[in-house]
């Protein structure tokens, strides 16, 4: 079975999962004991206004019909509209999603850059001081509530030290780069606008650093464990015996072997950080899905919430497939079947 066929099969398998997910979110959204329409219409709304709203959104239809309508819309690109803002959900997701994606990606990169070396050092100095320090530090940082640490960091680095901007993706007076991907870091590079690139890098640094802390511990732990396992393999003993320097063995051979398990954890973390971003964004006024999700959930506005859940489901499935491709690059022995 070749790679292309494997990928097609994997992509096809996303569909039943997403249908299941849509049933799940749909049931959550329709089992609400509260009164979303009443909440959206406001306290002064008469029964007729509420009734009209219900009819407009199709809430008066039987549930199976509502579900089928929602699903056909989903495939046609009509993800419903918000009860509150009356804006198109898919349009909103398109606006807010790049900011969250950018924040999460940078956070995953930081977590990897911190976590993998920490894990490697732990494994090299197994059960000695550097190992213990790395272990305590990673548990220490992962235990902080990220939203709380975000407030502290915002104040320290943004206000007191003035090293970094306090919030948002760019200063008010700087125009965002022309949209290609919606990721400011990449768009500004495409435009060769290095000034905007640096400014947006400064803006994203503290939020993504805080976000990365929650992934640091698991990446360190898995890197250490798989390094330790790889270090005990026969080929390491052989390489040491024929006199290859220890450093070369570690970085050229062992790390590559150990990285497969680490990649899995990194991709899992991508999903977790995407969710964690919801909390961080509220602190840094980061105009991503987080603020959008919080507002929607507080006002029982379920169309956006369902949209976000399905978007996250799609992204997570894609990340899983990409992970499998990376396995194949790292380990040529892996055959897709």
């Amino acid at each position, binding site marked *: 079975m070749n790679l292309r066929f494997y990928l097609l099969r994997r992509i096809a398998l996303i569909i*039943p*999962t*997403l249908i*299941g*997910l849509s049933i*799940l*979110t749909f049931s*959550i*959204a329709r*089992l*609400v*004991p*509260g009164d979303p329409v009443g909440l959206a219409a406001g306290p002064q709304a008469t029964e007729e206004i509420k009734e009209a709203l219900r009819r407009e959104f199709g809430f008066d239809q039987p549930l199976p019909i509502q579900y089928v309508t929602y699903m056909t819309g989903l495939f046609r690109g009509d993800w419903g509209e918000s009860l509150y803002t009356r804006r198109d959900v898919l349009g909103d997701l398109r606006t807010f999603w790049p900011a969250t994606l950018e924040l999460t990606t940078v956070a995953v990169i930081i977590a990897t850059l911190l976590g993998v070396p920490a894990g490697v050092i732990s494994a090299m100095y*197994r059960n000695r001081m550097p190992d*213990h320090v790395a*272990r*305590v530090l990673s*548990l*220490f940082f*992962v*235990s*902080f*509530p*990220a*939203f*709380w*640490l975000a*407030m*502290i960091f915002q*104040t320290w680095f943004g*206000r007191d030290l003035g090293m970094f901007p306090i919030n948002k993706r760019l200063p008010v007076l700087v125009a965002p780069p022309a949209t290609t991907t919606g990721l400011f870091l990449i768009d500004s590079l495409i435009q060769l606008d290095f000034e905007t690139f640096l400014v947006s890098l400064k803006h994203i640094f503290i939020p993504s650093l805080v976000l990365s802390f929650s992934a640091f*511990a698991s990446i360190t732990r898995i890197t250490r*464990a798989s390094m*330790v396992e790889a270090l005990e393999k026969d080929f390491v003993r052989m390489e040491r015996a024929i006199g290859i320097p220890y450093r070369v063995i570690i970085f050229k051979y062992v790390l590559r072997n150990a990285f497969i398990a680490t990649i899995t954890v990194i991709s899992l973390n991508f*999903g*977790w950080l*995407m*969710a*964690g971003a*919801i*909390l961080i964004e*509220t602190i840094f006024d980061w105009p991503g899905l987080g603020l959008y*999700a*919080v507002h929607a*959930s*507080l006002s*029982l506005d*379920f169309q956006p*919430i*369902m949209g*976000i*859940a399905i978007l*996250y*489901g799609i992204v*997570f*499935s894609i990340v899983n497939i990409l992970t499998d491709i990376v396995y194949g690059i790292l380990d040529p022995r892996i055959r897709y079947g």
Partner: protein
Amino acid sequence: MAELPSIQSEKRKSARSARWENFARGLYRFRSNTLSMVGLTMLIFILLVAIFAPIIAPYPEDAAGKTRVMARLQPPSEDFVFGTDKIGRDIFSRVVMGTGLALQVGTIIILLATTIGVTVGAIAGYAGGWIDDILMRITDIFLTVPALVLAIAISAALGKGIVNTMIGISLVWWPGFARLTRSLVLSLREEPFVEAAFGIGAGHMRIIFRHILPNAVSPIIIKMTTDFGFAVLTAAALGFIGLGAQPPTPEWGAMINDGRRFFPDEWWIATFPGLAIWLMVFSWNLIGDGLRDVLDPRARR
């Protein structure tokens, strides 16, 4: 025939002492692990604070939302060790009074999630076939969306409040336990002692509960301990968003949300509840890390 019972009781005794010996060895390893002992000490401290909260807190009535208009937004002082909030409540008293709540929230979430997850995982792994397929597809659906997103959706749908938050988080927390239990059951099912039990005519329930699950306990306990801290963290996050505990409940996440508007000028309102969450999560993480060494010898070498 007369000596048969005695052989059996002899065997039972030796099995029990083997289990005891394992336990004693584990306890020794746990005790010689400095970090996990630090974690345990911290947790005992937290438990004591929770039990004696009404005695420790100088103003226990502040947990219920007593206002003290004269002492609004006071910085930490002798009277108010952690300062006061926007309506003059003593932060220290509220942090102390919230300890028990945080412990309860974590306990209930983890127990619910473990019960659902272990049941689903054990059935899936033991039954196999289409039952396994269906149960695992359902589990996968929950795992395709980050837990926090679904927890927010479910808690929002059920309505604001600490009980609904706990239900919401438990409903998204079980899939991890289901996956873990299933993989354990799958490998244990092939063990000779399970085959033997089946051979002498033991029923499915007996095999699952007497032979398979007791041997799967260690990894499940490790996961329960490490997850405990994160469950508390998630509940605090929902409280921070405004979905969880409602005022005047002294829930740490909601208290941070309360203090957000006053940060950083009146930094004490949000800072101390955050440190309390950190202490709780850190202690569970240290214990979980130590237990992993004790119960799963392969993990730490």
